[in-house]
């Protein structure tokens, strides 16, 4: 029951951090490479938000994610 709350907390914090970082990196790039256009900032922010969203979703999905394992059957020689 507490997992949910914690998950949400992580989610929000993670998204905030990533958005801001994205913003920052976008701003940096816009300043350095793209002649102070606005689109890299939006791009960076969006990327950050998207990453945060994806992370959050993955975190929430994690109990339901199936990890398939390939089991190699080794042919053992038995007397039968």
């Amino acid at each position: 029951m507490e997992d949910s709350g914690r998950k949400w907390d992580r989610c929000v914090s993670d998204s905030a951090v990533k958005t801001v970082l994205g913003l920052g990196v976008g701003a940096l790039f816009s300043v350095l490479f793209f002649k102070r256009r606005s689109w890299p900032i939006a791009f960076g922010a969006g990327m950050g938000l998207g990453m945060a969203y994806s992370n959050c979703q993955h975190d929430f999905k994690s109990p339901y994610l199936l990890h398939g394992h390939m089991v190699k059957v080794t042919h053992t020689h038995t007397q039968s």
Partner: protein
Amino acid sequence: MLRVCWKGANAAARNCLCGKVPVHPLQHCRRYTSAGNSGSAAGKIVAASILTVGGGLGGTILYAKWDPKFRANVEKSVPYSDQLFEMALGPPPPPFIPMQKKPVKAEPLQISSVSEASKDSKQPKAKSKAKEKQPEPAPVDPKPAVEEAPALPPQTIEEASAEAAHIISAMSEVQSVPAPGTSNEAVPAESEAQTSTVAAEECHECASHEPAVKERPGEEVAARLAQQDKAEQDALAALSFNLEDTLGFSAKLTLQAIGAQEAALTAIGTHTHRLREAMDSEDPPDKKSAQWRELEDALSERTRAVDQAGQSLLQAKEQLEKLRVVINGAKESKIEAARPQILAAEENLHSMIVDLDKVVTKVQAAQTEAKIVSQYSELVNEAKVQFQKELSSITPEVQANWKGLTGKLSADDLNSLIAHAHRRIDQLNRELAEQRVREQIRIEAALEQQKHEHQRAVDSAVDKAIQHNHEQLRLEQEKKMQEVREVMEAEMRTQLRRQAAAHTDHLRDVLKVQEQELREEAQEALSSKMMEQETQHRRLAQEQLDSFTLDMNSAYARLKGMEEAIDSHVVAEEEARKAHQLWLSVEALNYTLKTAAADAPTEPLEGAVRTIKESCAENEFAQALATALPDESLTRGVYSEASLRARFYGVRRLARRVALIDETRNSLYQYFLSYLQSILLFEKEQEAPPTKLAAQDLDTFKLLAYATYSIERGDLELAAKFVNQLHGESRRVAQDWLKEARLTLETKQVVSLLSAYANAVGLGTTQAP
């Protein structure tokens, strides 16, 4: 920039929305369309199959209606088709049952007689399969043996059984219902008549009860027989009397006739003799006249005798005729006992006839002889007269007695006489010659005549002799038959005597056997009664003994019981102590359970459980229960119900919020949607759970409502059950709570069991005051 970001986010969200939402409807549509396409094809297939099946069924029913054998086959092979057929066509047609007549074990005589009848009558049978199979009856011998009876075809056996049953019912002493075979009215009276006529010799009993079979009781039959006998006797007596009478009379008459004939014979004889004498003798005239007178007497005598003889002969013949008639009548009456008499009478008759005939022939012979003699005498007389006349004509003067005139005659007379004599001699010689010749002729004619007459006489004599012989033979045959009959009678009597002897022997044997059997029975009865008495006596003695031992045993048992009671008392006290201890320890456990504070678990139950285990070391049930407590409760303790209840609401809230999340739909957007749903969905917080959970009740909200209701009512178990039905994220969220609830419930269950057990033990060991 923020607006741009926001627009981008919205666009992204809308894309997600557009991408996500149509999933389900599309799935549904796909399902619908595929269902639609397959639906029409399936419909066609279904229609075609229905048509085929219906057609086959209808055809089967119609054919079964037409052909009952096919119907029977189908009914046999297909289980419930007979009901279907009965519904559609009505009951099946009645099966073809041939007339089963039980072949009656009839007596051999009847079967043989009946087989004759069936051979003769040749009656058709309506519904006889046997007749179809064997068209003509096997040829039956006129006098079949018993072994041949099974060889008869079934129809004749049926017939035989019918006839035999008929006859048996007719013959039995008791008034019985005629056997079922007799109801077959194809047996008319004529066949019965045929039976009786054809098999009269073989079936004596049949013959005695004539065609129109009507039962007569035994006494009537005996009376009738007696009557018949008496009538016979009377008739016999009358007949014999009659016979004797006529016989006597006819004998008398015959004797009379014979006597008369003989008298006539003698008369004729004397007459003839006299006549001859008279002819031949040369006596003086007076003697001659005397002779002639005597001759006349004899002649009259003879005529008289002959007449008398004729009369008596007529009478005798009449009487003999009468006798013959009477004998024939007696023969026709067919009385057995009169046979010898009849035979004797016939013999007598025959002998009398023979005698009469003999005598008659004698008389006839005598008469012919007499005729001859008389003719001769006439001739002689005639010649004499002639000569006399001639002599008188030649010598007219000399009359009658010319012999005394020899001296008186002259020489002329003598010469003329001599000449006359010579002439006469010549004439006579000529006459003689002529006569000789004529004689020859006459003799021949006479011989011829004689031959004819002789022939006739011979024929008549032969006929008479043949008749007499015939009669004689017949009489002899009758006599022989009579003898043979007597012999047979005697033999039959001996055989019957033998049979009677055998019968008596058999009776003796049977009686002996019966005596033996009865003796054995009596012995058995006696021994059984003795045994009964003995067993009874023994039983009484045993009872006495048993009762005494019972008393002794009961006294001993009571003593023992008392000792045991005392022992068990001790044991019970011990038990009570133990139970008390157990109960105390269980109470301690209960108390520890109550130490749960809000939101904190109880103390670990380890200590209490240990004391329990110590207190009931030998009690397996308690030990098992004590070990059944979950480890968590022992180490950590359990939460109280109240804390669980409080926590439940938080769990409920969370579960509602994540109601839409499961394995398939668990993106962040779904989380938002489910949160929205939980806010917008209004429903009762508590809802009474139904007795049976249906599929639609497995909705999260419903389940939570039921669980809330249950937990408010204090039913943690039911609430846990409902919470257990959650799926997906809601379940995960409630998992902790569920685990805790389970623990609590388990512990509580075990503890309650233990306390119940302790209570029970305590109750068991408590002494009632």
